[in-house]
């Protein structure tokens, strides 16, 4: 026999060990050595809080009463874990990207950060979890009682109550100590997770040890065990089909929806890859937990006197066999199951209660901004969370007291599951269907809650307790369709299956109907897109358009929630990111968005949104804002496109202007040169005319002198006139204003005219011609052509420096052109000057005897261009040769050669 005091001592030592494990883990994590604290193994073990005392003790009793049905409670979670790819992968990713703090936060956040939905889910969760916590207290109390009674103490009601109360108080202290150290729920509770992992190992070992003892120690091996099972009174397979399927579904759904499971699966998840390991390791854990349930039940029924409580076989079989050590281990296993579940459930529920009920209410009470700024939000939230933990445990204890701790409590496990599962349609709809709206989710949740309460929860207190027997039999006000266990007049269903079926069907139906008929708010649509498309790298759309909040205000508020150092670090990081010096960043919408998410990690999405909303002057995004933003973006885009086009055009214009400017500058330079040339050319004869006319005016000279001077004046005047004529001529030619008079004539005659007009009478220039070659008829402005010839001949006269100057005029023809070459026997033109001679005012040497202004050749070239021909300087072995090209096409086409 184990003395009761020894058992108490063992339990207290175990608790002390758990405290130190939690404490050391916290220390280790704080020192930064959290590597193995975040291993997949710890994650998998932490999931074991699914196996509560109800399953630790109750599974054997369940098997003894209903055969294999007990296993459905494990099969559902196995399927969910094995099918992690479908839901859990998505859920964990969403939880991490949105910094979700609880399942209520998930629902609230998904449907537009709705406070109302958060409250509804919180209420459902608390109502559903309370009986379950009571059940844990009962298990622990009962297991204590087993030892006490085996020690021949007889327990009465007050002993039970006192034990339950001390257990509840102890759990509350532990949870508050390690569960509310930091506000940010996303910062993992290393201490608690580690303690839970230890407890998971203890309860598995305890159950395995009892199982091994039963199979090998009592039955004598697996084969004998199977024999015993076959021959026992239990019928393992005698299933109501509806119950089998419903229960597998129920446990699978509960696994996803239980707040405590969400806490360990999603919130405490440190690495998405852990899920992959857990997907097979956790089913293995469940498998091992249930492997020996049937053997223990069978052996217990065989060994123990009829009427023993099969729920306690795990304890009583070793005790009856005198295995005290094993019995204590088994007790610790059950204790572990109960405490780990209660601790995590209390944390999860407290987070929900404080974030979705207490803080919003508190914020509302302090609706003016000054009041909020002056209070310490951080302190308030932590206090709220601690009080919530105490409150949740108190509720469980009160429920335990009120229910009387009898067998009625055992039946409520599945009822409680069904209540929790009412969140499933909103959850699944929310993460897979973008069309699910807040209205739909609220309708579904409320409908499900009502039906669950009516068909399962209220009847679970026993007929006549809350709902009178007559209502059970005939419905309220005699409406048979509303009978709690036969809705719509359909009778014959198992009450549990009936409740699951109708609540799930109507819940989902209302979700779909409400979603189809309502239109979601913009924030809902944004959140919906982010949740459903969590695997597509979707960028968060800005939820804040006008950042009216001052950075100081935001910092003050964040400090109150996150703590001074963290908040300042966030602000500094942001300032650095924005490239600002100092500590306060610009309050851009992106920053506010990020900050809100940080705060959401502490107080939940809806509250964070509301708090920031108060500071930013309630500038919550609206459809109009979204449209305005979209419009603005489009306008900016268009404007920038236009700007770009304009700037390209301007650049082109600028380039054209630059070119024009360069041309103008060059022209201006040319003009200046031209003007200075002209003034120089004009001044020389004018100077002569002026000086000689002055001499004449003074008189006092001979008549011969007078005649000579007048002659000089006359000559100079003629030169001036010629210069002006030339200039005029050139100007007319260059401007294309010249009028050509077409005539037909003989080249030979033209040359005669030119030679005659060239003024050769006082020159010794000898002209050599071949008249036969010159027999060419031309059609052109012959006067102009003669002008060219005259110019070329007089040039030869002026510039030919040979002692016996001679000009040969040669006419030759090619298929296209006639060439008229004027070849003299002088020294010719230096090669470097060849390019210049056709320019205006160019004179190769400054032979003043030339007497011209240097316009002659320029005029010649202009004339020839007008006539369609050309005049070039051609290099000859000896002397200068000017070639006049006369194109046949232009001049000879109508002519017949003579």
């Amino acid at each position, binding site marked *: 026999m184990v003395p009761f005091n020894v058992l108490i001592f063992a339990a207290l030592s175990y608790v002390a060990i758990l405290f130190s494990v939690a404490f050391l883990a916290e220390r280790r994590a704080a020192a930064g050595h959290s590597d193995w604290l975040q291993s997949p193994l710890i994650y998998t073990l932490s999931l074991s809080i699914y196996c509560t005392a109800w399953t630790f003790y109750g599974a054997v009793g369940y098997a003894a009463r209903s055969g294999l049905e007990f296993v459905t409670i494990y099969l559902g979670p*196995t399927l969910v874990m094995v099918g992690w790819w479908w839901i859990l992968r998505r859920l964990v990713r969403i939880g991490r990207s949105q910094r979700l703090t609880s399942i209520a936060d998930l629902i609230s956040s998904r449907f537009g950060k709705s406070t109302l939905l958060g409250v509804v889910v919180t209420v459902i969760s608390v109502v559903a979890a309370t009986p379950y916590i009571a059940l844990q207290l009962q298990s622990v109390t009962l297991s204590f009682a087993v030892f006490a009674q085996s020690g021949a103490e007889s327990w009465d009601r007050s002993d039970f109550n006192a034990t339950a109360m001390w257990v509840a108080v102890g759990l509350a202290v532990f949870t508050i100590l390690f569960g509310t150290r930091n506000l940010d729920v996303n910062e993992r509770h290393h201490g608690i997770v580690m303690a839970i992992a230890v407890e998971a190992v203890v309860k598995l070992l305890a159950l395995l040890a009892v199982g091994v003892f039963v199979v090998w120690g009592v039955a004598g091996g697996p084969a004998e065990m199977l024999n015993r099972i076959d021959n026992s009174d239990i019928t393992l397979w005698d299933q109501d089909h509806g119950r089998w399927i419903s229960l597998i579904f129920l446990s699978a759904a509960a696994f996803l929806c239980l707040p405590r499971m969400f806490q360990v699966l999603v919130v405490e998840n440190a690495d998405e890859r852990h899920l992959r390991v857990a997907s097979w390791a956790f089913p293995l854990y469940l498998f091992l937990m249930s492997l020996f349930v049937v053997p223990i039940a069978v052996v217990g029924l065989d060994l123990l006197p009829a009427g023993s409580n099969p729920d306690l076989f795990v304890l009583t079989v070793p005790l009856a066999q005198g295995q005290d050590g094993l019995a204590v281990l088994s007790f610790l296993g059950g204790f572990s199951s109960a405490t780990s579940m209660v601790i995590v459930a209390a944390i999860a529920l407290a987070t929900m209660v404080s974030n979705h009920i207490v803080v919003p209410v508190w914020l509302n009470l302090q609706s003016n901004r000054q009041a909020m700024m002056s209070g310490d939000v951080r302190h308030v939230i932590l206090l709220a969370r601690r009080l919530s933990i105490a409150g949740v445990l108190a509720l469980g204890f009160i429920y335990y007291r009120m229910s009387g701790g009898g067998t009625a409590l055992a039946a409520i496990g599945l009822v409680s599951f069904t209540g929790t599962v009412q969140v499933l349609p909103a959850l699944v709809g929310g993460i897979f269907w973008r069309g699910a709206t807040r209205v739909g989710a609220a309708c579904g949740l409320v409908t499900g809650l009502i039906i669950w309460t009516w068909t399962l929860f209220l009847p679970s207190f026993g007929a006549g307790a809350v709902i009178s027997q007559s209502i059970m039999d005939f419905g309220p006000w005699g409406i048979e369709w509303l009978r709690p266990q036969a809705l719509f007049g359909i009778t014959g269903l198992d009450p549990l299956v009936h409740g699951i079926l109708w609540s799930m069907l109507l819940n989902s139906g209302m979700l779909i109907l409400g979603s189809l008929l309502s239109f979601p708010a913009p924030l809902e649509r944004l959140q919906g897109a982010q949740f459903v498309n969590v695997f597509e790298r979707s960028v968060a759309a800005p939820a804040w358009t006008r950042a009216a909040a001052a950075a100081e205000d935001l910092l003050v508020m964040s400090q109150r929630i996150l703590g001074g150092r963290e908040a300042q670090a966030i602000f500094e990081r942001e300032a650095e990111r924005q490239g600002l010096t100092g500590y306060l960043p610009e309050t851009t919408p992106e920053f506010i968005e990020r900050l809100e998410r940080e705060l959401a990690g502490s107080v939940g999405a809806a509250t964070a949104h509301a708090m920031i909303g108060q500071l930013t002057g309630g500038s919550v995004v609206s459809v109009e804002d979204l449209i305005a933003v979209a419009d603005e973006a489009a306008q900016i885009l268009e404007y920038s496109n236009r700007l770009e086009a304009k700037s390209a055009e301007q650049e082109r214009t600028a380039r054209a202007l630059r070119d024009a400017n360069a041309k103008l500058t060059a022209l201006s330079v040319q003009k200046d040169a031209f003007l200075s040339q002209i003034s120089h050319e004009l001044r020389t004869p004018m100077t002569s005319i002026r000086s000689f006319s002055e001499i004449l005016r003074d008189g006092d000279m001979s008549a011969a002198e007078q005649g000579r001077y007048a002659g000089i004046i006359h000559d100079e005047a003629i030169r001036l006139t010629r210069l002006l004529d030339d200039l005029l001529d050139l100007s007319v030619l260059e401007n294309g204003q010249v009028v050509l008079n077409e005539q037909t004539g003989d080249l030979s005659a033209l040359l005669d005219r030119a030679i005659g007009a060239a003024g050769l009478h006082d020159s010794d220039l000898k002209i050599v011609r071949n008249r036969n070659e010159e027999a060419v008829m031309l059609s052109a402005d012959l006067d102009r052509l003669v002008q060219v010839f005259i110019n070329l001949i007089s040039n030869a006269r002026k510039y030919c420096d040979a002692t016996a100057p001679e000009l040969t005029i040669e006419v030759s023809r090619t298929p296209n052109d006639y060439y008229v070459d004027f070849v003299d026997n002088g020294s010719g033109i230096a090669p470097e000057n060849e390019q210049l001679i056709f320019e205006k005012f160019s004179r190769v040497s400054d032979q003043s005897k030339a007497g011209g202004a240097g316009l002659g050749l320029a005029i010649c070239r202009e004339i020839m261009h007008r006539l369609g021909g050309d005049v070039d300087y051609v290099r000859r072995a000896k002397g200068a040769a000017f070639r006049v090209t006369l194109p046949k096409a232009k001049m000879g086409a109508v002519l017949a050669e003579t």
Partner: protein
Amino acid sequence: MSGPPKTPIFLERASYKQRRLTDAARLLPIMGAVLWAIPLLWGDDDGAGVSNAHALIYVFGVWVVLIGLSALIINRLQDDDTAAQSDSAD
């Protein structure tokens, strides 16, 4: 701007295998559900039903198979979501 980047129609062998492994991971829970529903078909025409040991071994056997297959698939499945990124190509 052109449309979304085109995904290839056919994948190389390694990616193809990964794709099929994710298919397997998706189908595994469905297989489990079907296998565990099969006992519902066990006839009780002779009134005695199925033997206890038989039922026990079947249910737990399916369990072991599921755990084993799941571990096998996870082991082969590559670390990230590359396999899941686009489901359009096969």
